[in-house]
């Protein structure tokens, strides 16, 4: 469980996040949605510690990160997996080496043990026979899967995904979404996903937080989001001709 308590974040005089109070539950796919520029990425970077908040606090299963020292933060990071928008695979390493990397850095397992874990993770994301390929030799959807495999290699408690569907076709998007939901359930992780893809919202939005100009405007489930009367939500959900027609 991740609790966000009244966080604020500004860049210079520009207030990007204001008064955000949120709880993300374990074993659920939690979504952060909102228009471009609403602060989704900044919020996620604050959560994973790539950015410092100006005020407020974030609690990971009850322990507050503002009270943690350097070493405690470092060990917290090993419980965090993150899927980046562009996959962020290390392009000098093969698929196998990419997934093995966190194991090599943070465990003292033997090569065989590590390889077992790598193959388990790759199999979990439905990838076979790609161990020796380099990131440049596989498709965008496959890169996303490898990135998921790398993110779960250390068995993290928390999984963060920044726009997991960007640049993927609708079918592959759904496959990736479902994969994220399945592993969230299977490994009982607290998963937070940044998206502006309405398909994902409907498919896997167990809990949805809607950001509007840096404020938490609305929260609810994928059932509720379709019937709310909130104007900004409706503008967002029914932005396209297709969805407007479906509503009728």
């Amino acid at each position: 469980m991740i609790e966000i308590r009244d966080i604020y974040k500004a860049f210079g005089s520009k207030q990007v996040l204001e008064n955000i109070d949120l709880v993300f539950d374990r074993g659920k796919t939690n979504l952060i949605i909102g228009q471009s520029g609403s602060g989704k990425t900044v919020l996620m970077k604050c959560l994973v510690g790539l950015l410092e908040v100006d005020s407020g606090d974030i609690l990971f299963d009850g322990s507050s990160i503002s009270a943690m020292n350097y070493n405690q933060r470092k060990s917290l990071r090993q419980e965090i997996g993150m899927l980046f928008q562009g996959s962020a695979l290390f392009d000098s390493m093969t698929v196998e080496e990419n997934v093995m990397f966190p194991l090599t850095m943070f465990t003292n397992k033997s090569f065989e043990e590590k390889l077992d874990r790598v193959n388990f993770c790759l199999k979990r994301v439905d990838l076979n026979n790609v161990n020796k390929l380099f990131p440049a030799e596989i498709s965008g959807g496959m890169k996303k899967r490898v990135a998921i495999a790398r993110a779960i290699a250390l068995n993290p408690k928390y999984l963060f995904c920044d726009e997991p569907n960007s640049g993927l076709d609708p079918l592959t998007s759904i496959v990736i979404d479902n994969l994220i939901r399945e592993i969230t359930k299977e490994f009982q992780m607290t998963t937070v996903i940044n998206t502006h893809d309405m398909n994902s919202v409907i498919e896997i939005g167990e809990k949805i937080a809607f950001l509007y100009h840096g404020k938490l405007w609305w929260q609810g489930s994928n059932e509720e989001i379709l019937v709310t009367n909130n104007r900004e939500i409706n503008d967002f959900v029914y932005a396209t001709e297709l969805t407007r027609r479906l509503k009728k």
Partner: protein
Amino acid sequence: MGIIRNIFYMIGKYVLLMSRVFARPQKDKVFRRQLMIEIDSLGVDSLGIVAIISVFMGAVVAIQTAYNIDSPWVPTYTVGFTTRQSIILEFSPTIVSLILAGKVGSRIAGEIGTMRVTEQIDALDIMGINSANYLILPKIVAAMVIFPVLVSLSMFLGVFGGYLAAVIKGVISGPNYIFGIQSWFIPYEIFYSLTKTVVFAFIITSVSGFYGYFAHGGALEVGRASTKAVVQSSILIILFNLIITQLMLQ
């Protein structure tokens, strides 16, 4: 005023980065492996270009020296002596370092800059790895180890190139040249020269690492960072060449 403030800002940022670079690596075994890879790609890959440049440089220096001291009062072995001095004191350490600044500097800035803009550095940070240390330290150490080897080789080949040119052109006999290069040899000069090289190696790798690490944007900015890395490290090499020479050769 703005420029001066900017320079101090950059220096501060550079020093802060270096304080993160010089930390204990997460895993010694991984560090040793990275170090070997970098020694190979920074050093062994540069052997060819260093060899070619050195032979030709030595040849030109020898011919020019012969041309300049074309007088019956000056013994011909002076050509050997002067060529050796020029090569050891200046040409090998400085010219080779400048060439390596272009070759190695742009490579490092390009590699690390690309990792920055494709979020690979963020991925390292998220895992709890000190990305500055993991990426930059092996390159700095590798260069400081291998550049002196390259420069020593360059000295040898430069003097050899001078021998070829002088003897083939017939300005001086082989034994005379050999006698020249053995005259008034001061080992301290080699020490001075290799000290310069180690400092230049540090400048090239740390400055290029700095520009790559703080690149942002896309491919265009990575290209720009590479260019800046080469220009800045070349300027710093020239500057430190003067400083070290002032300090060490009195």
